């Protein structure tokens, strides 16, 4: 049997080879090439450590632990490499890359990199970051939806994750989250004490099992707050087009497969609808009603839902204050109207509108019963035409940016 070190080294060599072969392929997005380089460098470091093990072997438990870490890195990064490989596929909406990347730069910072690709999983954005390699925003639509430019608003959610980390929102809200979890455990004390097998409320802070449960709930609550922050940022940046894209992908809510790291899709929709007016957005009619109630929920889910509801005001405030700091603008009515007029005339929008304004206009038209009623040849393929118009509008924005006349 091959030694653990030798077989791990072989696997690392194979992944490095694979990275190099993807890197050599054509049509690679420049940001994707940088990501591949960063991943390759990471595995080169692991390679060197394994070579050191061969020269001067440490205790077997140390070797096993480190090889396990390397194995988990292979598990973690191979899907990213696949994502970068698929980023070359012509079905990806490359046209929106430029405007979205500029928006990402405005929202996050100059060093951010954006990669548009697709996933062979319907769940969008399975990878919210490039492992522990910073500054990459991954925009990965389900492969069957990859050509749908009207789903670009979902990028707003992905912009939220690096902001949450960079701005240390975790730290800012840490104590409030911890306190909210404890408050909810106390509020449901009769059920909680049965579950934990403890008698007094004070034991919530001293009993090892109670602390472990509080820890897990706090971790999940933090993850849920991050997701809500990201949704709210998406709503702020893309207005009602974010709700449309969200509903298109997630309604009625996959109720049987909810992860504790996310609020239920229904709660997310409810939050978006509530927060919309704060950002000057009108949520689409019937948006929240599209999402089903989860039929069976456990105590953890209920506590987490209450914690998120308790902290909603802070999260909305965090988005408002961050947007103000970065001078970010939500989609404006004038830009929406200009885009709507152009798209309705089956023409791309001009640089009087931003990409989020174009997307709001496109979703608005998509839901209009009377769109192109008098032009049946357009009406028959209205979704396709609208999609093409959004893509062309993005190219127009890119053109004006290149010639130095970006709005």
């Amino acid at each position, binding site marked *: 049997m091959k030694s653990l070190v030798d077989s791990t080294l072989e696997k690392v060599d194979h992944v490095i080879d694979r990275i190099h072969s993807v890197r050599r392929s054509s049509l690679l997005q420049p940001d994707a090439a940088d990501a591949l380089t960063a991943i390759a460098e990471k595995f080169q470091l692991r390679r060197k450590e394994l070579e050191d093990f061969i020269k001067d072997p*440490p205790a077997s438990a140390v070797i096993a632990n480190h090889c396990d870490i390397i194995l988990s890195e292979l598990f973690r990064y191979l899907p990213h490499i696949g994502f970068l490989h698929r980023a070359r596929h012509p079905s990806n909406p490359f046209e929106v890359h430029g405007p979205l990347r500029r928006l990402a730069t405005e929202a996050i910072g100059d060093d951010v990199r954006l990669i548009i690709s697709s996933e062979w999983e319907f769940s969008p954005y399975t990878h919210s970051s490039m492992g522990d390699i910073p500054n990459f925003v991954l925009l990965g639509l389900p492969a069957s939806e990859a050509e749908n430019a009207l789903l670009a608003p979902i990028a707003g959610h992905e912009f939220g994750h690096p902001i949450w980390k960079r701005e*240390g929102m*975790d730290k800012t809200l840490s104590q409030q989250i911890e306190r909210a979890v404890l408050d909810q455990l106390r509020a449901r004390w009769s059920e909680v004490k049965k579950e934990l097998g403890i008698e007094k409320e004070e034991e919530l802070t001293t009993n*090892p099992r109670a*602390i472990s449960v509080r*820890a897990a709930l706090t*971790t999940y609550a933090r993850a849920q707050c991050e997701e809500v922050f*990201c949704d709210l940022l998406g709503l702020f940046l893309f207005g009602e087009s974010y709700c449309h894209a969200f509903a298109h992908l997630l309604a009625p809510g996959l109720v049987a497969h909810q992860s504790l790291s996310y609020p239920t899709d229904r709660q997310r929709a409810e939050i978006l609808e509530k927060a919309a007016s704060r950002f000057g957005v009108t949520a689409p009619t019937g948006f929240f009603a599209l999402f089903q109630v989860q039929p069976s929920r*456990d105590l953890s889910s209920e506590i987490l839902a209450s914690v998120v509801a308790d902290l909603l005001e802070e999260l909305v405030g965090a988005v408002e204050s961050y947007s103000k700091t970065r001078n970010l603008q939500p989609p404006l009515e004038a830009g929406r109207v200009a885009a709507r007029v152009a798209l309705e005339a089956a023409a791309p929008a001009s640089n009087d509108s931003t990409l989020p304004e174009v997307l709001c206009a496109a979703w608005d038209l998509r839901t209009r019963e009377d769109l192109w009623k008098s032009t049946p040849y357009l009406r028959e393929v209205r979704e396709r035409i609208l999609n093409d118009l959004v893509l062309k509008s993005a190219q127009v924005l890119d053109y004006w940016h290149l010639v130095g006349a970006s709005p």
Partner: protein
Amino acid sequence: MQQTQDKIALPPGLLDPTELALLASHVAITLDAGVRGRTVNPAPVRALGAILAKGLGQSIEGSAAGQAKLADPETTALLTRALATGTKSVAVSEIGEVQAAAQAFVNASSRDLSTLDQETLAALRDFALGVSLAARTPQSISPLGVPRL
């Protein structure tokens, strides 16, 4: 937007779990070198000591001064798992044991490692291995998991 697996996260005072697992593994590697009479690189040991000191709610400079209270439930739970899942797993019945183990590591990390005997280095290495494993061990899927019907 929607991940298929629950992610593990650590409190803000600590590193990202994968980074913490890797750092703790590097600590175990260098301390193991010390156990075998080789030179110990103090940098990763100090880095982990500083992170744990933060988890204990104290500065590394003040770490030798005495006991501090564990800062939050997540750090406490992580370190409890570290003791329970390390090479010499310990069944934790009181939080004080967790605190003491973390404190011992923090105190040792600020000392000249070449002055520590092999037994101490081995104990610190095992603790680091426990932290490395605990940092990448998922938490229970539903901590209060009785479904409502």
